């Protein structure tokens, strides 16, 4: 699945979660033209914002609805293929990348992401990295299972 398709689906999921739980959430169409991994710092910050808001609602005793909210979303795009090669970063390799320009109206109370959680925009970079010194980085964009094909 292309990163852009993935990004659109994830955005739809976030929007549904916000709508269902009466969380103020306004997002605009991503205008990034280059490669996309499906997520980026802006997307991640929106996700963290939703988590924060849901926690607040739970603390106030309000109803939370998340389970199976998006079970009906189609997860296979047209012409869906495993289009990204296996990437295994070398030990110690810095796994950061260019951040996609993304015009989104983000709520002012969004949390700042740690650098280690930032997902780069490039398809050839890992989804995120939390590699510790002395360990082999283990995050890859796509890791192929033997013979796996889309459902």
């Amino acid at each position, binding site marked *: 699945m292309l990163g852009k398709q993935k990004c659109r689906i994830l955005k739809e999921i976030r929007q549904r979660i916000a709508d269902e739980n009466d969380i103020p959430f306004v997002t605009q169409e991503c205008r990034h033209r280059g490669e996309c991994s499906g997520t980026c710092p802006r997307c991640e910050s929106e*996700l963290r914002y939703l988590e924060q808001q849901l926690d607040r609602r739970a603390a106030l005793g309000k109803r939370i609805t998340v389970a199976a909210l998006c079970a009906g979303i189609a997860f296979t795009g047209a012409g869906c293929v495993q289009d990204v090669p296996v990437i295994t970063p070398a030990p110690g390799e810095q796994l950061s990348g260019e951040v996609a320009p993304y015009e989104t109206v983000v709520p002012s109370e969004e949390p700042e992401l740690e650098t280690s959680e930032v997902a780069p925009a490039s398809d050839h970079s890992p989804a995120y990295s939390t590699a510790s010194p002395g360990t082999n980085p283990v995050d890859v964009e796509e890791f192929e299972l033997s013979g796996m094909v889309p459902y």
Partner: protein
Amino acid sequence: MKPVYPLLALARLRMGIDGKGVTTLIAGAGCPLQCQWCINKRLLREGIPTLVSPEQLLDRVRIDDLYFRATGGGITFGGGEPLLHADFLYEFCSSAPSGWTICVETSLHVPQRNVQIVADIADEFIVDCKDMNPQIYRKYTGGNEKLMESNLKFLLQTVGAGHIHVRVPHIPGYNTEADQANSVKRLKSIGFQDPELFTYTVRD
């Protein structure tokens, strides 16, 4: 002592590939089989696994908790052979938040005790049976088809066919479409009515 997992790779936000909803694939090191066309052989050979505890792995994958719960997705353990690390999987799944679907992609070429441990806590199994013909199975994998088949029957009795997705590959150089058809026939006689046929992708 808490079990640890030899983590080789972790891939977030997968869709429509290895389970329903949004999934995170966790690939571990180690496999009892020696399949010629193993697509992960290079990574399994060259990658240096990082040993992680159940809590450490949970911390890493929890980032997508909302996506998992909203879509019915969750974690897929691949490999390598994840059932080699059955005790770890049990600990991990026991601690995982409710609402995550735990899927295991396996060859079932492991001791039955391992299958039993994970059958109690995993939601879905994806089984690549290779080929049900003993000669083909042994030639291609170096393993014993009797172990796989007995575990397949055990798993069927334990979790039911609805939780097991059996796949039958066309293995270039090792089996034919007729062999695949024979495997499907054999699987149906065991109780799997809808095995999936597919073809291995062979790369240089």
